């Protein structure tokens, strides 16, 4: 064993170190530097903390870029700490997604939090610390690393979901999320302990070897598999473990909902892929029927429950459940196209879903919650730009070309056809038509109904910038996807 850590060890976790340092620094700044006091006593000045977030993300981006360069020049994986962390194309790809999500969410938050009267500096710290946890979810190759990453991320989210301290809904959401989250983590820990029992090691590679040596349908492996799956499926809000999602999404501050629905889901999907295509790869006969059932149920629950929602955040919550179903289908296909498909799907989902939530963020005004379908009535008359942006995001979420969402679905369908899951493909495509129904309820409200609320939107420079970026990317990926597809190509490193 290495007694002294090498340079490669540090290099492999460099972005996470940056995130942790800056996250803690922001917490300190806000709590007060000894003898000086909080540097931003006035809540209105706290938006300057964004500079720290931005600097942190620049460092992270730099770290990721150099790691990528290292990978290309050495054509090997970058492992650290005796195989606890493995930086590969897959991990780097997902980390870029986390970076974009964190940056966008941080930039749009200040206005929202000011209106909600809860603008505290630690919010930005929590965003960075959660991202630090995600880093390990995407790159960890050791049960302990992964578990700690997951808990770090989840704990930050528990706090952020309940960030509106005086709001009952927010408190309720945080409590529900915490209790159910803890419950599912218990399952995960149980599964991990069984895996350790099977292999005597916490390294994913060792576990994979041990499981390969086991006979097919080995009960212990099956138990380890199902319990791990429960924990993981909970995190990506797949049915029947999705109950927390609508409540948490609705109660949380909308900016947090955006972060939760995008980054947390992306990280959990990365984690899921690492587990199912890593140590559990040879147990495919066992988990494939299981996941098919879960995916179908998830698509059904997500799409059908969304139809009757009148709260946009709940509607988008159910829609994000159904998107988890599509991502699972990519994993079920499991070939090169499928994994690339999941990566592309997560990428486009990040932009379009962030965008849709950003429009909801803009609807939150002084004294107006702005989350109801009725609040969107007639938006096209008063704020056509926002309405048309929302239209783009909704079309993309539904998967209508030429938006990015189509490309994500395209890969999933193609992978299903390549692996001859025809029936699954038919069901998955038909749910596209169901989805358009509820997405177009919002469109109908925005474009066809008369306006009811005349108050101007709560727009800020950060919000406009973020909306512009997400919308341009949503369209750009749809119209000229080549560079983005090449980016996603790296992610298939997981299969090798």
């Amino acid at each position, binding site marked *: 064993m290495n007694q002294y850590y090498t340079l490669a060890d540090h290099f492999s976790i460099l972005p996470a170190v940056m995130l942790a340092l800056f996250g803690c620094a922001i917490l300190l700044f806000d709590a007060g530097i000894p003898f000086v006091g909080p540097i931003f006593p006035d809540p209105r000045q706290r938006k300057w903390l964004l500079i720290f977030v931005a600097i942190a993300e620049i460092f992270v981006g730099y770290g990721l870029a150099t790691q990528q360069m290292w990978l290309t020049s050495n054509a090997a994986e970058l492992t650290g700490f005796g195989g606890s962390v493995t930086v590969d194309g897959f991990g780097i790809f997902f980390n870029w997604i986390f970076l974009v999500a964190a940056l966008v969410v941080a930039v749009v938050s200040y206005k929202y939090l000011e209106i909600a009267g809860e603008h505290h500096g630690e919010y930005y710290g929590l965003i960075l610390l959660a991202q630090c946890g995600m880093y390990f979810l995407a790159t960890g190759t050791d049960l302990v690393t992964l578990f700690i990453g997951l808990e770090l991320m989840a704990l930050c989210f528990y706090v952020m979901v309940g960030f509106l301290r005086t709001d009952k809904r927010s408190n309720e959401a945080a409590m529900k999320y915490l209790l159910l989250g803890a419950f599912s983590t218990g399952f995960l820990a149980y599964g991990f302990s069984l895996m350790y029992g099977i292999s005597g090691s916490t390294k994913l590679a060792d576990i994979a070897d041990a499981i390969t040596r086991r006979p097919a349908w080995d009960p212990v492996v099956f138990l380890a598999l199902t319990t791990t799956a429960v924990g993981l499926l909970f995190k990506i809000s797949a049915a029947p473990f999705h109950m927390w999602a609508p409540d948490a999404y609705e109660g949380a501050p909308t900016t947090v909902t955006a972060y939760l629905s995008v980054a947390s889901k992306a990280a959990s999907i990365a984690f899921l892929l690492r587990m199912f295509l890593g140590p559990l790869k040879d147990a495919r006969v066992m988990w494939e029927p299981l996941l098919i059932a879960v995916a179908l149920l998830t698509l059904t629950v997500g799409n059908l429950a969304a139809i009757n929602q009148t709260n946009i955040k709940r509607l988008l919550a159910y829609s994000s459940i159904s998107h988890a179903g599509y991502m699972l289908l990519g994993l079920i296909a499991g070939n090169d196209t499928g994994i690339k498909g999941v990566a592309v799907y997560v990428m486009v989902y990040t932009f379009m879903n962030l965008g849709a939530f950003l429009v909801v963020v803009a609807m939150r005004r002084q004294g107006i919650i702005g989350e109801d379908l009725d609040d969107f009535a007639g938006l*096209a008359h008063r704020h056509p730009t926002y309405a048309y942006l929302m239209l783009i995001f909704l*079309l993309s979420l539904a998967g*209508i*070309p*030429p938006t990015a969402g*189509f490309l994500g679905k*395209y890969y999933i*369908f*193609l992978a299903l*056809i*390549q692996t001859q899951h*025809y029936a699954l*493909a*038919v069901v998955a*495509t*038909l749910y*596209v*038509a169901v989805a*358009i*129904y509820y997405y*177009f309820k919002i469109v*109908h409200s925005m*474009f*066809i109904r008369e306006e009811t609320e005349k108050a101007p939107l709560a727009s800020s420079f950060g919000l406009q910038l973020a909306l512009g970026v997400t919308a341009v990317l949503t369209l750009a990926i749809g119209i*000229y*996807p*080549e560079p983005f*597809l*090449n980016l996603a*190509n790296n992610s298939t490193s997981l299969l090798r």
Partner: protein
Amino acid sequence: MDQHLLSIVLLTPLAGLAVLLFIPGKSKDLIRWWANLAAFAGFLVSLLLVSRFQTGTPGFQFEERVDWIPSLGAHYHIGMDGISLLLVMLTTLMGFVAILGSWNAVQDRSKEYYAMFLLLQTGMIGVFISLDFFLFYIFWELVLVPMYFIIGVWGGPRKLYAAIKFFLYTLAGSVLMLLGILTLYFQHYAQFHFYTFEISELIKTSLPLGLQQWVFWAFFVGFAIKVPMFPFHTWLPDAHVEAPTAGSVILAAVLLKMGTYGFLRFSLPLLPQASMDKTIVQVLAILSIVGIIYGALVCLMQQDWKKLVAYSSVSHLGFCTLGIFSMNPNGIAGSVIQQVNHGISTGMLFMVIGIIYERRHTRAIAEYGGLAHVMPKFAVIFAIAMLSSAGLPLLNGFIGEFTILQGAFEANRIWAAFAVTGVILGAAYLLWLYQRTMLGQVTNGKNLTIPDMSLREIATFVPLIAWAVWIGIYPKPYFDILQRPVAEIVERVRPGYFAGGRLAVTQPQPPTPNPQPPFSQPTLSGGDR
């Protein structure tokens, strides 16, 4: 410019849209003028296509091909043959006419209205000229969104129901079609080891018959819903009745043709064995005939003027699909001609309804009667539109129906026998409609003061009537244009068809240029032969 002529035709409406976005919403006149100008420009540039088009040349003309998404094998590949040419001309003309016809009808949110129409134009033209399946699919879906808004925002009282029904139906069909496309695409990859969506490459894939049939049904769902063929037609009356006039015109004249065009361009050439499969041909022909007769019978029962015309579309499109699945040159060429005819005549009928609706705000047939006394000009134009739709000789509808029936007769006499009843019923419901609304004494006092058609309104009909008469009297140029592509399709689905000595052609190889049309033309079309 010549190499990019087709792109220019495709992008002219889009360029008009881009400028339109910068016109402030308050200057309504400017918006109207600009939208009309853009649509007219679109029509003018498409005329260049006609003058440069070389009749009888095999394959595609005005081809443009650029790599678009190399890793998917998607290309920006466009081009046209005779079938596309006719449908593109129909699109640009009807688009212009529809936009011109909206001059007074649309006052509310006119900027968005015209923007949607221009977007729709590009989408529709794109569908007819795409030679890459990916590109085709994008245009195919692109059409849905503006049409949803046109029905949903500017439509009648049940517009929401109609708009979302239209959207859901067509989308459900097209996603299933996408699965078919992907199957074909993947099979091609398995055989040739590179991904491509190009039709010219996909056509080389040899599929086992069983798989071909599955893919055929997947395509069928997408195209049949769009046409719409009999059991899938229920979205059509709702969409037509609720849509604003111009929306109905475009919907009937062009959008429905996307389905029939899909059969001709994709189903038949890409899946030749499945298309000739006995069961499939039988099922499709029977569905077509049921559509013809059922649509006509339902028309007889309608109390609503617009609904009647909507159901007549089901009947007429039944002829088009019957022609296609006769699988012989007459049937297919007749089908394409009939698609154009239906666009012209049903477009005119919907415009007629729009004109009367603008004046009286009701479409109930019982409200009218004896209008010919009050509105003589209107009565003449309605008569021409009605007769062209009913298939009176010397007008366009006759040529199409006649040729289709010829083709159907050649394929199966029983089909032709049943289909002919559709012609009779068609004349019945249309003449009865005319009689109830236009002839006799004015029964309703409110109708006494209706103003007759204005010059602008008449102007919108002039090009359509001229076209209808042209096709009716001298259809030879159309059959000449269609001869080559239709022969290629028939040769593809029935190899050796032209060698069988059944028709005038003796050359067995399809690419050999042949001065004579390989099939007989309707003899009543004039003394040119």
